[in-house]
């Protein structure tokens, strides 16, 4: 059985993580990806959740950012001010994960409002840790399901900074971290490339012309299908002198580990579990 698009997103993201990464993990897709990496090729990866849990090894994925599972399996749990001051602002996080309600091609993200801030059409949860994760983690990975209402030309509100408007750079805002370098979706893997095909880590990277660029399509995804889900003109890798790959299928091990993790998680979160526990 092959991976679902959501599974493919977690698998593709997990492959980008290394054993010595220190990840600031969000709930949902990032949590699945980071723990999949930990349970496969990166056993010593450090996972940090903003609730203060450091080097945690959850057996089931947390529903919230502060489930007991996270502190029970952590190396140590610190206060929330310490988390944001010493660990995030202190520059100790190598990869920060962000999700997005709205996202543009430059990695700017909105999770605050649809419509006007003061008279919102939809009031979303807001930034939480995102404004500072976006600028203080050394690098940002964004995970999102592709959809036209989410992948927009112009976001309604800049909750967290990517590379700003075209022609700007993060330095415009006095930020010296790399910012969003990867966008991992249910359909593809995107990399933030400039018009010469350079990534943030490459010499001469010109953020003024950078945009998320499709570098790998997940198995079975067509360019047309992908373009349908994006509200901005999609840049494919060939346009900047690189090649669009096909994302390798999820391996049997990847799928088995991920499904096992998700099954344990589902069981733990169902009310059924509560009743069962009580009956024991």
């Amino acid at each position, binding site marked *: 059985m092959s991976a679902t698009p959501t599974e493919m997103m977690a698998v593709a993201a997990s492959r980008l993580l290394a054993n010595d990464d220190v990840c600031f993990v969000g709930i949902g897709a990032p949590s699945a990806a980071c723990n999949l990496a930990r349970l496969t090729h990166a056993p010593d990866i450090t996972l940090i959740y903003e609730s203060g849990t450091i080097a945690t090894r959850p057996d089931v994925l947390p529903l*919230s*950012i502060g489930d007991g599972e996270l*502190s029970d399996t952590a190396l140590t749990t610190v206060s*929330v001010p310490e988390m944001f001051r010493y660990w995030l602002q202190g520059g100790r996080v190598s990869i920060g994960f962000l999700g997005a309600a709205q996202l543009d091609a430059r990695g700017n993200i909105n999770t605050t409002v649809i419509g006007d801030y003061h008279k919102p059409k*939809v009031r979303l949860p*807001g930034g939480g840790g995102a404004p500072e994760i976006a600028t203080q983690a050394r690098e940002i990975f964004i995970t999102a399901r592709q959809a036209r209402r989410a992948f927009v030309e112009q976001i309604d509100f800049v*909750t967290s900074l990517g590379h700003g408007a075209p022609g700007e750079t993060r330095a415009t805002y006095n930020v010296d971290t790399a910012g969003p370098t990867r966008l991992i979706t249910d359909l593809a893997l995107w990399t933030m490339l400039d018009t010469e095909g350079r990534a943030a880590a490459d010499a001469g990277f010109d953020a003024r012309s950078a945009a998320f660029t499709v570098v790998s399509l997940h198995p079975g995804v067509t360019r047309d299908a992908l373009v349908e889900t994006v509200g901005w003109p999609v840049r494919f890798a060939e346009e900047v002198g690189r090649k669009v790959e096909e994302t390798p299928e999820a391996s049997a091990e990847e799928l088995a580990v991920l499904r096992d993790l998700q099954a344990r998680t589902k069981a733990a979160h169902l009310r059924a579990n509560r009743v069962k526990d009580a009956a024991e």
Partner: protein
Amino acid sequence: MAQHLTLEAAIAAHVRDGQTLAIEGFTHLIPFAAGHEIIRQGRRDLTLVRMTPDLLYDQMVGMGLVSKMIFSYVGNPGAGLLRRTRDAIENGWPQPIAYEEHSHAAMANAYEAGAAGLPCAIFRGYRGAELARVNPNIRTITCPFTHEELAAIPSVRPDVTIIHAQKADRQGNVLVEGIIGIQKEAVLAAKTAIVTVEEVVDDLRALGLSPNACVLPHWTIAAIVTVPGGAHPSYTSGYYVRDNAEYIAWDDISADRDRFHEWMEENVLAATADVFADRVSALRSAA
């Protein structure tokens, strides 16, 4: 000096209309029982401060107790939006609420500065973030050494902070363990603090705790209330697990104004603090 009181007495003695309250808890240790007692006592015109407002503030907003909220994440963690709060913000139902919005880093620093007795906190924040444009309480200072511009925000100084914790002792010292969040800072930043606990022991010193355990001395707290299960559907590490199913269920309950009111009537207005022990009984075995 901490007094051991009933929940009803503690809330009646310390919580007044028009106050600024911080009922804190970062997913863990959210004092639901205390919040429900405030709803039953019918307080009004409250300013609620909290990093992650969560279901409890959604309930207080939906019941019309709240005139203003100061927050950094107004969602149902892992489950979605807070529908009662959305209804208040988007439609002014049951009444409009004002709000001041920050990032987590800002709120954490603001509580920390409050605990430290400072008027403001500084941090390297809000760069390129639009909240700085819409929130006039986000300002800047310039480092007098490097000339770097840093964000400045006012410290949080609640009239009353309420937290939930694992244990108190007879003298009123309180132990908080696990995800300690912003609990210590919220207590120390406040003029008055109320703590609900799972149990009271004779003397915390006799428990062989880590020398660096998070313990709040009795003279930082006004009232201690024993409410087993008082954090449900949040959780108390070492006692019972988070009732994730209840958090997920809230999404439906809160979607409809009438259904919300029925639920509140049955589970809050017609209830007492005693119901919490029952609510967590099935969750204890997994803790």
